[in-house]
């Protein structure tokens, strides 16, 4: 049986934090550049140009493009033929986060929810684990900023509300968020499962490459229709007006119960910063 020592996990997570928190992923940078070309509003263009400049400055100065370096959300895929040695896997991940945020001079934004006491090292990470075939471990880090996380919503629709209900809920959520979540945004949508499953689907959909479509053509059409509707709201970059309110809508589904239709919308700001490593 293949073995992986937790020291390798710590190193990998540390490096993922350092890489992810500095600048957005390439797909996000590209999507912003395309939006800048297509924008018709002068103010919106100005904002998008500033965001491009910001990424260049972040790369040159090696400081984060956005100060909200987020709460570390980690998606783990662990092969069932793999053995982790050297200690506790989750402790190793948190150690990696601790080291990455410290070495990178990233903001420590994590605190206890009620007394608001900062943990001082951006831990704990939120860790989602899945067991897969094989003997590898896939670690994906998504530093999630809360300007956009705060604008996310979940609703248990009735089956009678159906597809129209889903579309209305997504649009309502984007309209309520308006200029708050740093548009242009990515709209992650989870449909089905149970309450927490819908939320997790919405979050996971944000990992997809921007502009990629759901392999199911029916869902891909809904994604495209919703993106058009969202960009017609006129909210625009930073809520200052324009045709670029969202860069993408990603939908993921899962079977649900005969009595229910859970829908979750997880909003992601333009600073999409996921990074992935395979050991």
């Amino acid at each position, binding site marked *: 049986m293949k073995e992986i020592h937790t020291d390798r996990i710590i190193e990998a997570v540390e490096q993922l934090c350092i890489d992810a928190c500095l600048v957005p992923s390439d797909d996000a940078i590209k999507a912003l550049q395309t939006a800048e070309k297509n924008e018709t509003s002068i*103010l919106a263009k100005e904002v998008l140009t500033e965001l491009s400049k910001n990424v260049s400055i972040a790369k040159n100065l090696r400081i984060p493009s956005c100060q909200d370096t987020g709460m570390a959300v980690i998606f783990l895929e662990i092969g069932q033929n793999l053995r982790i040695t050297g200690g506790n896997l989750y402790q190793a991940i948190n150690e990696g986060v601790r080291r990455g945020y410290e070495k990178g001079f*990233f903001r420590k934004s994590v605190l206890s929810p009620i007394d*608001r006491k900062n943990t001082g090292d951006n831990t704990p990470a939120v860790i989602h684990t899945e067991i897969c075939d094989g003997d590898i471990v896939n670690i994906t880090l998504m530093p999630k900023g809360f300007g956009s996380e705060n604008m996310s919503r979940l609703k248990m629709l009735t089956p009678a509300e159906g597809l129209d209900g889903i579309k209305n809920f997504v649009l309502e959520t984007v309209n309520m968020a308006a200029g708050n979540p740093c548009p242009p945004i990515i709209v992650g949508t989870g449909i089905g499962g149970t309450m927490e499953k819908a939320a997790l689907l919405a979050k996971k959909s944000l990992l997809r490459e921007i502009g990629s479509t759901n392999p199911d053509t029916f869902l891909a059409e809904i994604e495209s229709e919703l993106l058009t509707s969202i960009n017609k709201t006129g909210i625009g970059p930073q809520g200052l007006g324009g045709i670029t309110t969202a860069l993408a809508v990603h939908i993921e589904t899962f079977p649900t119960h005969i009595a229910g239709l859970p829908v979750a919308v997880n909003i992601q*700001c333009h600073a999409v910063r996921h990074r992935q490593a395979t050991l």
Partner: protein
Amino acid sequence: MNTRKSINADNTKELELLKCGDLVLLDGFIITGRDAAHKRIFELTKRNMPLPFKIKDQLIYYTGPCPSPPGHVIGSCGPTTSSRMDAYTPELLDLGLKGMIGKGPRSKQVIDSIKKNKAIYFAATGGAGALIASCVKGCSLIAFDDLGPEAVYKLYVEQFPLIVAIDSCGNSIYEIVDSRN
């Protein structure tokens, strides 16, 4: 379209004359403060306790910077969502605060208070933390250091790019965008 005009943070008269939608480059001293600092300022004033820094005629910037790496004045320092400060803002404006810098729309109460106090609200570009850090030429901690990233700093900025989102007459760019749709 407007070209960007330079303005000094201490020029209260000129700040009052700016119009919603104006693009400006701000120079001068501003203070920072976000959720936890606002809560503390609010509690101190409620108990009639003195504040550890001057509020009158100041501009407050809603930001919680990253730690400053060696050789840098400040870490990444873009704006945070302003609406979370809405509950505290009218009170601060009544204390003489001249204006706010943040991102996103404000409540009706805040807009009314801006109008009443002839204040101003600027939008900085959310997510442009590195670009804004490059405009910060001086940074010193002035209060609440126990709040970590939420402590209050005094910043000296040069050519900080901003948009007038709500002017001293209470015109809001977000309402104009809303009514257009």
